[in-house]
């Protein structure tokens, strides 16, 4: 308890508290973390993200799909599925498998359904294959009638199902008819997961190697400096691409492991450098000399006297690395070397721009992915700036 009080009462914590912008940033980061936790707890599964919930490239709440497009993509599709099920051998079984997004077939006997289908078919017969309202505006009521008739085929949604559906189509669908909103939120988890794992690993490794190199000097220092100068002389992205390639045929290729390894191998360097420098300074402090004259061993001195006094640098580096990892993940996934078989902002951006669709007016997928990433990175940048200021003794 006393320790927590001490932590809150430090000058640094007070300075951070006074910085309102940093608090807003912190709140935003908390929201992202909550979203990531929600996904991790099973709120949105990978299957949900890959489920087709509606027509392709359906706009979100801000613009209604045109009636003829709705007819084309949604009504006709469902009708075809029901017809195919009715023609199957195991009619009952086939009917229970019919679904389009949240919609399933209403619980009626096949005979009743056939009558309903015939009714809808009759209405559809009055429309040609692909009706165009610009040419023939009188078709509009016919389409409305058809939709109303077809709605009888669908089982009514419960209030919860309706809510989930509304949320899923909040920002429309992508080129394969999957929910953009859910995919974007799921990608938060991927981003945060990669960011956290990378940052924790890189900061621990960097701090450990940096402190050891700085404190022991001699050949330990030579080895560590040699390793990091060698690693930092390789262009970052090239190494990441090579590592990603190396994993293409392994069992781990669909997991995040290649990304972790690629980032873990390069991201510790900056932290290592900073901590090594700080250790070089700290080991000449008299309290370290005091610990040496008391007879403490080097491990004890490193753990109790040196590393705790570099905690502020670790914190700042952690925050910076987290952003860097998230950004790199997006770039890598965009290039096709990063996350595979699950949503990621990079993949969403790539999917959106694939066939020049963005130019054709399909902006909401790229827009949502970019906005999510932008806000998170901005919030972290503001926070690490504020942390840096809070720990800077010269900054009031």
């Amino acid at each position, binding site marked *: 308890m006393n320790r927590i009080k001490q932590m809150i009462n430090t000058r640094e914590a007070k300075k951070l508290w006074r910085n309102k912008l940093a608090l807003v940033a912190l709140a935003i980061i908390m929201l992202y973390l909550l979203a990531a936790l929600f996904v991790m707890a099973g709120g949105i599964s990978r299957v949900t993200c890959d489920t087709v919930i509606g027509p392709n490239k359906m706009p979100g709440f801000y613009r209604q799909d045109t009636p003829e497009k709705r007819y084309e993509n949604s009504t006709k599709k469902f009708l075809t599925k029901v017809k195919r099920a009715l023609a199957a051998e195991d009619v009952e079984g086939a009917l229970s498998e019919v679904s389009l997004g949240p919609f399933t077939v209403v619980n009626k006997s096949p005979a009743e359904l056939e009558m309903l289908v015939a009714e809808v078919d009759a209405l559809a017969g009055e429309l040609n294959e692909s009706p165009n309202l610009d040419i023939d505006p009188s078709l509009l009521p016919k389409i409305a009638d058809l939709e109303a008739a077809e709605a009888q085929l669908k089982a009514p949604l419960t209030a919860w199902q309706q809510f989930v559906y509304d949320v899923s189509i909040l920002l429309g669908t992508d080129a394969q008819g999957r929910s953009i909103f859910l995919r974007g939120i799921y990608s938060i988890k991927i981003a945060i997961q990669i960011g956290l794992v990378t940052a924790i690993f890189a900061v621990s490794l960097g701090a450990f190697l940096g402190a050891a190199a700085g404190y022991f000097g001699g050949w330990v220092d030579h080895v560590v400096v040699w390793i990091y100068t060698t690693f930092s002389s390789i262009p970052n992205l090239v190494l990441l691409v090579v590592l990603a390639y190396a994993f293409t045929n392994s069992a781990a290729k669909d997991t995040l492991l290649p990304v972790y390894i690629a980032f873990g191998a390069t991201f510790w360097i900056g932290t290592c450098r900073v901590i090594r420098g700080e250790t070089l300074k700290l080991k000449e402090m008299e309290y370290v000399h005091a*610990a040496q004259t008391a007879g403490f061993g080097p491990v004890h001195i490193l753990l109790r006297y040196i590393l705790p006094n570099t905690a502020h640098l670790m914190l700042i580096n952690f925050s910076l690395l987290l952003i860097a990892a998230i950004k790199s993940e997006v770039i890598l996934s965009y290039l096709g070397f990063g996350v595979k078989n699950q949503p990621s902002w990079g993949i969403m951006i790539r999917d959106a721009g694939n066939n020049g669709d963005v130019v054709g007016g399909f902006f909401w997928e790229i827009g949502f992915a970019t906005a999510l990433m932008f806000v998170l990175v901005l919030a972290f940048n503001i926070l690490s700036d504020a942390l840096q200021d809070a720990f800077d003794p010269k900054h009031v």
Partner: protein
Amino acid sequence: MSPPPTNSDNDPVLVRVENAVKHFPKRGGLFNRVIAKVHALNDVSFTIKKGQVLGVVGESGCGKSTLGKVVIRLHRPTSGKVIFDGTDISQMSNQQLRPIRQRMQMIFQDPNSSLNPRMTVETTIKEVIGLHDVVPESKMDETIDQLLKKVGLRIDDKMKYPHEFSGGQKQRIGIARALAVNPEFIIADEPVSALDVSIQAQVLNLMMDLKEELGLTMLFVSHDLKVIDHFCDSMLVMYLGNVVEEMPCEDIHAHAKHPYTRALLSCNPITDPDQRGELTVLEGEVPSPYDPPAGCPFVTRCAIKTKQCETENPPLLDRGNGHRVACWEVE
């Protein structure tokens, strides 16, 4: 250089330093070769008897702090011996040194950097006591309380962090930490030079009392002759890594012989106008410790130098009563 004087009385010697040399290599150039050496200590010998306080005085960069650090083995001497209670510790490993570390402790110069900012006073002291198992765990709290009382701190101060204390208080904590393991020998590296004058007196008096009470032997490093005079039984005067004079601290004004010691003494402000002598201002700079003069280290600034001084380093010769001077020109 002559061998250190044998002690005439039967006081056993606790610390004996024999011909200690410390060079710090400077590396650079291709393949990180040693391109120069700082001659921090050059053939230094002295003894400290049990219960005695030896002062070391000299200007900045003369090697007096290095001497303290070599004696406590923060630095390993390049050559020479450091004999503590009959054991040569100069080349021991840290493992071998651990039992000896409990018997010798150090008080540091800068109270602001001598305490770990992330540890409370209690933790700082507890760690050291725990390392050497000086007292059983059950008596730990009691011991810490007694220590804090002994150095003049309040007992409820022990839960505080170093930044909550003033400089003088921090120095008291440093003293408490040094005393926590019941050492026999203490090296005080300019323990009061970073403090206000009024606080200096308090801390010095505290150290005096503790020294009397615990019968400590001390090596007291300072650049302040008055502090040395007040505190020590005898003193070494150092210049550029060499001991130029060693003398008992009795009426040093009357006895000091080496021209450098005399110059140091004349810089000391004296309150009684009748006692004021002539102020000797030394000309020139201290030579670089990378490249000390061939003869007497003081030759570049000495007022009474001769030809001999420029080529031969004068030995530290005994002039009676434990007074040794390294100068060709004084008798």
